């Protein structure tokens, strides 16, 4: 009896084949469930389309070709796109560094040893669950209750920033109210990044600090010369995470606008204009995230 030798693959080939097998589910999902709708959106942005069925979309037929008309439309005649884009970008410029710094400080504080640390850790990671999806909007008192009509003390209390703003009053009250509003957003966004920073801080071996203390380094020097470089890979991870959270989250002004317009259907902006705006926004976010991560990854210090 001879073994059929030709069927036996080399070790490396077999390894890479099993690698592909492990990744296969994601590949299928990527092609069928992500790239396909993305491509559909791209094609539809160049065409006006018709819905064939009134009861539901059974087929989407691209009709006339527009070329880049929708894109020019969005950039020129429809001011909404530029306005919302600038709004999201300016919010990003403020919120991303603030959230990053806040989560880094929080991780440093939570890494110290003090009474009640377990309690504070549990509470500070709470936004990971309470700021997600429908729970967030329900807790903010947004769903089911029209915030414009809230008049009683009970429902006013739902909105802390609003009540502070009202009780102080004037421009200063306005400022404090906005600051509080943003602070809540920052705290909610900082849940996962704090977790990642804290994990990074705990992997720094205490012996490094011990030896630097023997050499006479101060806490300040320790922070900049040890903690900061050691944590720099986390800074990259968290910057990308916060950027994605900020630019692609449900609360982003641009996406909220697009989502709102899509919900309006025929009465809102034409579908292909929306698709064009979505694609342009998507490209902008991709460029920003790519550029920022490229710059930061140059500064990251890797121990090994």
């Amino acid at each position, binding site marked *: 009896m001879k073994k059929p030798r030709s069927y036996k693959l080399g070790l490396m080939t077999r390894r*890479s084949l099993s690698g592909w097998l*492990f*990744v296969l*589910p*994601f590949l*299928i999902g*990527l092609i*069928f*469930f992500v790239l396909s709708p993305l*491509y*559909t959106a791209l094609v539809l942005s160049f065409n006006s389309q018709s819905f064939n069925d009134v009861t*539901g*979309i*059974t087929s*989407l037929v*691209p009709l006339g070709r527009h070329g880049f008309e929708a894109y020019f439309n969005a950039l020129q005649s429809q001011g909404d796109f530029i306005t919302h884009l600038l709004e999201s970008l300016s919010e990003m410029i403020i919120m991303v560094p603030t959230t990053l710094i806040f989560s880094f400080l*929080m991780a440093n504080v939570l890494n110290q040893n003090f009474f009640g640390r377990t309690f*504070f*850790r549990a*509470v*500070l990671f*709470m936004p*990971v*669950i*309470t700021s*997600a*999806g*429908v*729970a967030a909007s*329900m*807790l903010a008192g947004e769903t*089911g*209750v*029209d915030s414009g009509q*809230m*008049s009683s003390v*009970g429902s006013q*209390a*739902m909105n*802390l920033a609003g009540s502070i703003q009202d009780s102080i009053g004037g421009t200063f009250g306005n400022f404090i109210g906005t600051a509080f509003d943003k602070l*809540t957003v920052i*705290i909610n966004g900082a849940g996962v990044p704090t977790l990642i920073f804290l*994990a990074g801080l*705990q*992997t720094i071996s205490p012996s490094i600090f011990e030896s630097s203390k023997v050499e006479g380094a101060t806490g300040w020097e320790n922070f900049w010369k040890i903690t900061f470089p*050691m944590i720099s*890979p986390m800074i990259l*991870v968290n910057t*990308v995470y916060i950027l994605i959270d900020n*630019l*692609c989250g*449900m609360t982003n002004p641009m996406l909220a606008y*697009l*989502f709102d317009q899509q919900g309006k259907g025929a009465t809102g902006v034409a579908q292909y204009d*929306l698709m064009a705006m*979505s694609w342009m926004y*998507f490209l902008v976010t*991709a460029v920003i*995230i790519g550029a920022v991560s490229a710059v930061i990854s140059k500064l990251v210090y890797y*121990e090994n």
Partner: protein
Amino acid sequence: MEKTENVKRTNEVGAEEVDNFVIPTLTTWQKIKRFILGKRVLGFGWGIIRTILLLGIAYLIIYPLLITLITSFMSSADVYDPTVILIPTSININTYVAMWRYAEIPTLYLNSFVSSISLAVLQMCSCMLVAYGLARFKFKGNNFIFLMCIFTLMVPIQMLTTSMYFRYKTFNPLYMFSFGEQLSMVPNIDLTRGWTAIGLLSATATMYRNGLFVFLLRQYFVNQPKELEEAAYIDGAGPFRTFVQVMLPSATPMLVTVFLFALVWQYNDIYYITMLNPTAEVMATRISSMGSSFVSSVLHISGDQVLNSLYQSACTVMHVAPIVVIYCFGQKFFVQSIERSGMVG
């Protein structure tokens, strides 16, 4: 001989120096400065500042939860009374009783738990397979696929509503990238019936934030020692068996973390469910308007925002309570898991 002499001499010099060394006497001012900057006072001051800071942040986080909880126990008279702000005059559970019956909470709970737990398990399994494949096997395109995982995080699903719905409604594996006429030639599969589409998304690691799970798990697997696997291969285990029997058991905290994230995000998801399974009777989609619909259809009062918010707060508490309980049990895994992944370096 010379060497020992040298040593002796240096020793003597050293001794002389030690003799000459005088401990500096501190002035009173220096003593005070040292006392203030010393560990006790500065440490104590920092302790106080830290506690105030943390309490403030904790207050901001807990405030909405607390206020909702308190409001839900108020009676309708309390909500209207402007003198009642934080403490209800009496604890009233009638709101809960009414909403429990009206909103059919037991059914919603059951549906929500079963669907989100099974979908979270699916997401965890698919993500850990993909992450392991990316972390431990070298093949062409490995890095590209990992980049694609991050890319899926960046694709804003809001902008894809129309095209996603269209593709899933008329799913046809042969014509995923074509339009129009061809679609009528081959039978299309409607994935938006029941949980099919969401289940498939979960099984292929493309559901909400699954790229993040792949990233975290990959980071974990990359940092595990290779010797374990090599030993398993030498003993004759295949890649899959090695993964299940050798790599997975030590990854438990990370898997629990990913499972909890997936569970919470799935439980709270309304976007995918309203788009791909609109008939599902789950907490997330049904509970958010239950308060006002109860007030208008049972109490026959319309447009009363105060009463609406009272009934809605009971619904919110019932929606959030399970995840808060799960969080309390699971939060210790969060730090533990990422700690072990050795993400630094």
